[in-house]
């Protein structure tokens, strides 16, 4: 027993050593996606050891912020889903300007006009529901309808303090419908806890058969024969343009630009689409089972530089208000 353990111990230690320079990608891409693309990416760039640090957007952001307060970040490339944080990073001078030819067809409203970050993929927030628990004719059509009394004890969403995509959602909905919207949801016992996976879990177990949920979670669950189905609210689905950016602390800017471009390659984009998000590049097909981007775009709440700025300025206020109105 003791020998077995010490052998295990030393194999683990020796296997983790290597002397190639490291290239760090901090990302909120899914673990499956990383598992899938890592070997190909590593083969493409054999002279560096590509390292991933994966976590939720908020976790990655607070890690980078913490690293920055004590000097510089280890990250070379950032790929997460919080569009507001990138504006903040840009203002602090922590991003490297790079206007990549590989991304020139990405929609301009989703990108930084000064070229410090670019949209790399587009998760979409919609509604999910349990197809056996709710009859088709009873389904809500809009976000607004969720405040009706028949949805009491039926709805859940993620916690905007923990999940970046849920923060963006809360920002959009409070901007459009005011805090009254959330006050009403609160009086209907809305559960706002955990990340998107908790919402999916609550739908699948019928604990809360309707939920504010990312389309990608729904599509992935459907592949596993889950009874959850997507619903596209007619008052606007919420597209979350998720950026990619190079940090100004990168040790090798040229390499960073090559890897940045690689994430716009057809291979990388198709892998990302496989995980249920849209590609910003028009020639890449939508995720399987999802409507065309051009179709969905009509139904999406509008993004603008001004909106990004406004939400960024009110970020703390939105979190505080949401906490007061819903969480406590």
């Amino acid at each position, binding site marked *: 027993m003791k020998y077995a353990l010490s052998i295990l111990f030393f194999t683990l230690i020796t296997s983790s050593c290597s002397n190639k320079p490291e290239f760090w990608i901090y990302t909120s891409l899914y673990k499956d996606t990383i*598992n899938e693309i890592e070997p190909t990416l590593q083969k493409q760039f054999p002279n560096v050891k590509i390292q991933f640090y994966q976590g939720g957007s908020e976790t990655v952001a607070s890690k980078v912020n913490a690293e920055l307060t004590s000097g510089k970040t*280890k990250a070379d490339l950032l790929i997460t889903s919080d569009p507001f944080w990138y504006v903040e990073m840009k203002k602090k001078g922590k991003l490297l300007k790079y206007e990549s030819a590989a991304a020139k067809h990405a929609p301009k409203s989703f990108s930084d006009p000064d070229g410090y970050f670019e949209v790399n993929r587009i998760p979409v927030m919609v509604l999910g529901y349990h197809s056996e628990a709710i009859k088709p004719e009873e389904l809500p059509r809009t976000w607004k309808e969720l405040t009706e009394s028949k949805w009491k004890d039926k709805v859940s969403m993620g916690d905007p303090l923990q999940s970046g995509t849920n923060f963006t959602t809360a920002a959009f909905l409070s901007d459009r419908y005011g805090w009254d919207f959330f006050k009403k949801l609160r009086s209907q016992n809305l559960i706002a806890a955990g990340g998107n996976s908790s919402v999916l879990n609550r739908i699948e177990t019928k604990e809360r058969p309707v939920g504010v949920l990312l389309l990608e979670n729904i599509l992935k669950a459907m592949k596993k024969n889950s009874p959850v189905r997507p619903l596209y609210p007619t008052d606007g689905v919420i597209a979350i343009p998720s950026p990619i950016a190079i940090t100004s602390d990168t040790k090798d800017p040229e390499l960073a630009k090559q890897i940045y471009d690689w994430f716009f390659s057809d291979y990388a984009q198709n892998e990302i689409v496989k995980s249920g998000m849209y590609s910003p590049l028009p020639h890449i097909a939508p995720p399987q089972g999802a409507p065309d981007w051009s179709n969905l775009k009509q139904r999406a709440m509008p993004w603008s530089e001004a909106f990004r700025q406004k939400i960024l300025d009110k970020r703390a206020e939105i979190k505080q208000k949401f906490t007061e109105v819903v*969480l406590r």
Partner: protein
Amino acid sequence: MIFGVSQDLVIEVLLRTLSIGAVVSLISGALGMSLAWIVTRTQVPGKKQLNILLSVPYALPCFLLAMAWIVLGNPQVGILKELFPTEHGSYGFWGICLVLSSVAFAFPFFEIRAGFDKLDPALEEAGRMSGAGPLKVFTSISFPLLWPSLLNGMCLSFLFAVSSFGAPALLGMPVRSLVMTTLIYSQIRVGGINGIQDGLGLSLILLIVAIAVLALAWLMNVLQKKKMGPITGTKSSRPSLVNLGAFKWPVAFFAWGYFFVVVVLPWIALGISALAPIAGDYSISSWTLKNLHYVFSLSDFKEALFNSIVLSFSMATVIALVGFLLGFASVRKKQKWASVLLELLNLPFSMPGTVLAILIIVSASFLVQFGIPADQILLMMAVAYGLKYAAVGTRSLTQAFHQIHPALEESARVCGAKTGTLLRTIWFPLLKKNITACWMLAALPMFTELTMSILLTGPGGATLGTVLFELQEYADQPSAASLAWILLSVAMIIAWLTRPKEKEEKS
């Protein structure tokens, strides 16, 4: 406003926290007392096994039990929702109390079991000879001698309950039942640097509560030594066991049923969730190993396993070593500083992990300003684990020093042995088993640690706890349940492997 939170809310949350602490310590006290009595003084069927199995819950991480109870007591679909008095099922106050008590009962249980072992059975025998029934013997002989142990154990349960985070986060936050630790957490999440300051401020309140309770526990310890001192020591007789008569089976049902509810039921619930293809589909025909396979295939899992093994093994070794030396210095050498240090180690143990982690982050970034690279992730984690769980290990080692008669040491000293030789040739061999036990007690919670790891983790710093959290938040429930099930099973196996051996008779 107090630290960014309205005064009413702070009071409400503080009251809830204190009531949870009170309820948990009362339940733990009652359970610990009766179970300890059952395994030491009765002839209940399967007593030997019970004695060992009841040490298992202590090793189980609360957040895993909470995950299981969400499945079992879910207000809409849980099969055991009727068990709970409110419409929220296992969410909220009672669910939190249930999960915390099922682990926290171990503190009074261990204390009182040790008390019964030390108590000279001749006293109880004398009572019985004079015609007192089992109840009379208990109320007028055992209890008056053991109540300081009971209170000491209950104080520990109380501290454990008010400083825990995982269970109240999973069971309380969805229904807005906040406790101090979750309030601190959400305050930190609300806003950047102000949030951290507010969080630290709020944790000050918790710290004051903790210090007050620790002082009470310390007082009980002193009182207990005073009481037990003159009447214990070398045992002259084995305790004669109480004949339960007609109550034999109900008592057995109670003790075994307790083990079933606290350990077996959650294990089954997590197992079924791990085998289900999607959450909510629990029919046996659709069970699959895909989720377990997925967890093992994750590259993060390999990194996490490596980190968790390295961290828990190395820090447990440090704790065992420090505990051994401090115990020697405090018990045998009667060094005041060592005793004070041992008491001080209780402070980080009763501090919420969230607060401890933030204090470490803040001090690390302070040291960085002076060019000391203290912000290495694994280093910070090692420090956090070491501080948090030192008390767990050192407590048991200090007691071991008390229990063994120093005759051997004295004779060695007479022969001219120096301290180093004493430690190496006498105490180490004598306490080998206790040192191993201490090592295990410390290693086990570190292996599955979640609360502090989440805040401290970063690139290259995944641990089993953080991977579980990521899976729970971003993957799907069956995958998270799979990892939780693996961890729970490992914790149970280790607890079984390191079960306390039958006490050797000491002459």
